[in-house]
């Protein structure tokens, strides 16, 4: 999908995790929401609000700049494309991310990184997420 991911309607979020489940199963072929690039969290327990830790879709992504093997390449609209084939599992992209939203899966030896595919937006029952 064109554009980059936005979570501009978080006041409507019900914390159902459908977005995380969609990302994990479609991108990493995994049942566990732990394997999702988008992460939904409460800000301080469920009585507080919910927040989405998402890729900011940087125009000059520091994660790609840190990647010396070409696994991460910038997208024109922002964010990156990821090539699992080229990835060496060094983890430098994780540290480079300004927003701290790249995580590392030690079992698969690869970063859990948003590829701006928009699948999460298709599984939000409240249209909290969008690609713009």
């Amino acid at each position, binding site marked *: 999908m064109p554009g980059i991911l936005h979570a501009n309607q978080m006041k409507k979020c019900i914390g*159902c*995790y*459908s977005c995380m489940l969609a990302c994990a199963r479609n991108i990493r*072929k995994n049942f566990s*929401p*732990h394997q999702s690039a988008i992460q939904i969290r409460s800000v301080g*327990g*469920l009585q507080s609000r919910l927040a989405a830790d998402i890729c900011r879709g940087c125009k000059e992504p520091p994660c790609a700049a840190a990647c010396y093997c070409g696994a991460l390449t910038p997208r024109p609209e922002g964010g990156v494309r990821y090539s699992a084939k080229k990835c060496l599992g060094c983890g430098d992209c994780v540290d480079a991310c300004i927003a701290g939203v790249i995580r590392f899966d030690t079992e698969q030896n690869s970063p859990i990184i948003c590829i701006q595919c928009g699948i999460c937006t298709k599984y939000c029952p409240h249209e909290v997420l969008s690609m713009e």
Partner: protein
Amino acid sequence: MDLTIRILEINLTAKQVKVIERADLSPYLGGVGLAGKLFTEYVHYNQEALDPSQPVVLACGPLSTIFPMATKAVAVFRSPLTGAWGESYAGMRIALAMRMSGYQAIIIHGRAERPTYLVIGTKGVQFRDASALWGLPTDETGRILRQLVPGRGFRSCLRIGPAGESMIAFANVNVDTYRHFGRLGLGAVFGSKLLKSVVVYGDRGESIPDFKRYREIYDQIYQAAVNTDMMGKYHGLGTSVNVALLNSMGALPTRNLKQSSFENVANISGEAFARDSLVRKVACSGCPVGCIHIGLRRRLFGPEYEYESAYLAYDHELIYALGSQLGVSKQEQIYDLIEKVELAGMDAISAGVLLAWLTEAQEQGLVTEKELGVKLSFGSTDQYLKVLDQIIKQPNELYRLLARGTYHTAEVLGGRAYALAPGKLEMAGYHTGYANLVGLSLGARHSHLDNAGYSIDQKAARFNYSHDRVIDELIAEEKWRNVLNSLCICLFAREIYTSKTICTALASVGINMTAEDLDSLGNKIFTLKNQARTSLGFNPDGIHFADRFFETTAMAQELDRDTLVRLVKAYQAKTGL
């Protein structure tokens, strides 16, 4: 995926942990089947509910979290309220946490030496000192544990409040603030074990065996939940839509069922709550519906515009038990009662029905103002709040008795004629007819959710069912729900999860069952529960029906005791109970 059954057994007395693989239990799938079977292996039939040896068995199922609305876990235990079968369900994050921690069931038995909380997850099990937390309400307990335990976003915090610590027979276990293992007193069992909390976190991955097949059925179920009207009721107003509906049918228990409709219902209907105080909805992990309705209670606590706010979940049962059943007709007062039971960790339905009985018992002179400390009347919320505080403190004999629940209190003091606890469990918010009462008294966990008698009554009225058909439907529904509950599918999604859909979903993750297999499982669990509860002392011949059920019309119908007894006998004949 083979159906792995990996069980964590925790001995609080010895501080020992064992992991057990039980492939032989895979025919039970999970949930109530698995937990029920394990319970029968670990329970001590000749010891009472709060004996340290008694187990608590928690289980989720093979569809947990990975399919929409498969969000629950079950707890099976010996109920301190009824002495018999205890079965309770909770959602929020528990199913996700359990599944992703790698355990299909957790058994806890024994008794800790000092207040303890357990941390269970991918890094093993820790026994941690909870003495600093003992005495804290459920909300503050959760807040502190969130800071101390890893797994943010993937963990579930089960905790008791002061009610559980005092072993009140209807104390509950709070799950992640907005859900509960509510009925039948699991909180007291935790309290008797000095178990303040169990935190489960699950951050492991789980690869998908057949992605295409899984995605297809996932999408089908997701679409049905989100893009059709099937879940509309739960998402929209929520179950509180039932308040006005039942009222108009003459089925809303009011003032200890002196009435079956409430003249002030317009102030406290689901519509009124939504209009005046609903602020957001939240969901259990993996459910796109979001049926948890949260309302705002603003409270002036001092001069110069000193306001505080509480965000409280409300639903039909709470508006009934702490509203119409008590003759309370202001939303703020219902919220205040909700907050009191929530923070204390008490089952709202049992608390409300007990207070309703108590109001009448005091009117009848069974209980004096001196012993109670207050003078109650229907609608006297401030006095109700004081009584709830005292039930926790138990300063005298009367309060120690009240802490044992409505049934026991009436057995000792009298007032059985208006003690609304068929099967020893306080009634839920429906007075629809015979099916409801048969269902509550004979259902395995004495819950309206066992067999939806309240729904069968409505169908029976519309389509003129014979009594025979009513009984058959109660039994069939309970057997089918055993299947849904083995998969820990939220019962709100029961219309989406038909037999066919369940088989397709199971097949997509490598578990092959036919519709006949499912029915057979439901039947097997039905039999298991009947055997277990009989061994635990449940006696259907000894069921007491309060006179009140026959004094107040149900959906404009006067109920007759002989007919009800006949129906109970017919049920017993058909099931061998």
